[in-house]
């Protein structure tokens, strides 16, 4: 270690490794992982979120987690984007391909993908 800058750079790089232990980020993506969700293919959706959030460098703000059955099994896979400061946005009928768009538009750019939300499905 030759300088404070070097240490600071390493610290920033390593922060991501421990940030989860300080609690959830300001945005939580909650994927329905009940039997119905898993049967409808929620597992790869969860995996896609995990990968895409990392790719977009959003790990310091976004926590990906799971939940049980929400009760709208006909719309599975179901997930919700919960922002601490806004109302949560439920997305339905969500295969992995669509998940990528949610990460890019909603999580990165802050624009809700209206056509995938539960309002549009009904």
């Amino acid at each position, binding site marked *: 270690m030759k300088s*404070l800058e070097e240490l600071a750079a390493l610290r920033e790089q390593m922060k991501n*490794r421990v940030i989860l232990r300080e609690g959830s980020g300001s945005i939580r993506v909650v994927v329905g992982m009940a039997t119905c969700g898993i049967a409808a293919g929620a597992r790869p959706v969860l995996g896609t979120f995990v990968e895409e959030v990392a790719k977009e460098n959003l790990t310091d703000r976004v926590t990906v987690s799971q939940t049980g059955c929400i009760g709208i099994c006909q719309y599975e896979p179901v997930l919700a984007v919960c922002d601490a400061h806004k109302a949560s946005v439920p997305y339905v009928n969500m295969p992995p391909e669509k998940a990528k768009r949610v990460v890019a538009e909603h999580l990165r750019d802050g624009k809700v993908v209206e056509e995938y939300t539960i309002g549009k499905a009904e």
Partner: protein
Amino acid sequence: MIRAHVLICGGTGCTSSGSDKIHEAFERELAAADLAGEIKLVRTGCFGLCAVGPVVIVHPDGTFYSRVKAEDVPEIVSEHLLKGRPVKRLEYKDVDESVREQVNVSLNDTTFYKTQKRVALRNCGVIDPEDINEYIAMDGYAALGKVLTSMTPDDVIKTILDSGLRGRGGGGFPTGLKWTFAKNSVSEKKYVVCNADEGDPGAFMDRSILEGDPHAVLEAMAIAGYAIGADEGYIYVRAEYPIAVHRLQVAIGQAREMGLLGKDIFGSGFNFDITLRLGAGAFVCGEETALLTSIEGNRGEPRPRPPFPAVKGLFGQPTIINNVETYANVCQIILKGADWFASMGTEKSKGTKVFALGGNITNTGLVEIPMGTTLREVVEQIGGGVPNGKKFKAAQTGGPSGGCIPASLIDTPIDYDNLIAIGSMMGSGGLIVMDEDTCMVDIAKFFLEFTVDESCGKCAPCRIGTRRMLEILEKITHGQATMEDLDKLEDLAKYIKENSACGLGQTAPNPVLSTLRYFRDEYVAHVVDKKCPAGVCKALLSYSIDPEKCRGCTACARKCPADAISGAVKQPHTIDTQKCIKCGVCMSTCRFGAVVKG
């Protein structure tokens, strides 16, 4: 990306109750569920709540699982980590019902943690102690960087002085003052030593810090080296702490590899390196001069002070020697400032103190509280009270050098000066809680047996005096003592305190003196009435059967290992006191409460 962390306690307590197997089971199950890429397993240091170990924490939700077994792991993986449903039956049950009713209680909301203030233990149970990167992510080595690039040695010492930090090993000597003395001693070579020879029965604060956050100690030692002008450090740690030793070795290796120990640290021209020395487990080696003698390769015996180590210490050179917990506070003081540290605690005792809670207490474990917290808060709130509906009788602090705090003084704010004033001492932080079934004479005897064993034998008051005191205590517990013996015991205690060569002997009589001060009536009961009020001292006990209550079921007679109970079926039984060995089996066997002890 990793979406969840599973923290598994790797402290000595949880490891001995099988957390290794839990770790293996998680590895296996995560791989089988194809979750290994998104869930990280972390082996941490002690979380503190050893009573309910092995402990597993799942982040980001902070779910706190207690008493986990390897068999439970498949369920945690398939239910919680895959489907997101925490396994309720394994979640920690708080002692407070209102907390228990809340959903998803995180660690910091539990009654055990919420009033604690973690400074020395801040990384214990949070980071992987064997990964320097995680320490760096938690501002590790930033204090050393700050010191080497922007502070003079005098600035460092002034910060430590202003913070009011006092030695956490027991004596409570101001740390900054010790550093000043060593800095002012002129010499080519100086040393920084860490006293990790934790020997008090029931104390495990230092071990937990070394196991959970070893880099904090290494970094602080380097800071101390810069402050006094030393380039070499020694950590004297017990060989009986294999996990702590291993993690220290790993930490030193990683710090060297990254250039955080070694030559020209942060390009400042400052060199510092650390060597481990394993102690063989002699209690006297916790005394600083004996410890230094032992590092030098000699038999661990104390030497007279002055000269103090700050003037003439290791290998005859100026040396500072501080305890593990003292060092664990240093980096935080440098980063957050002396005022921040001094804002915690009481007028003369600043900051926090770590205690190892043990004995008759619900939440056995490690707690860190601001100085000035009352004993009542520690025992009743954080500790969860005395189990089995028993009454709190006393707390013992300071181990074999300390004394007892009776129930009447439970509202005493804990700090150095208050504890000395009531005849105990802070010590390194063992806090043993005792309930009404504890005999205080027996406790004093226990600690004295320890010091008799551990006396190094160099000076007569300690070697011979403590042995004579123990003999008197044995007479008392056998009901053979007279009131004169009590006076003799007190005289001897005072003589040993005044005339012993080192701290071990000077403090050895404290457990006797403090129990005599607060529980004299119990001593008198042993001497005059030949009774042990708590029913502990076997020689003064006798068991008998109440013929009114006895149904003649013969259960006790069948269980008695000495064949001391006789009587016909359905007739009251009797105990032959000549044959009785006072094991108490009859009492625990009897379903009618007919066996009485007195």
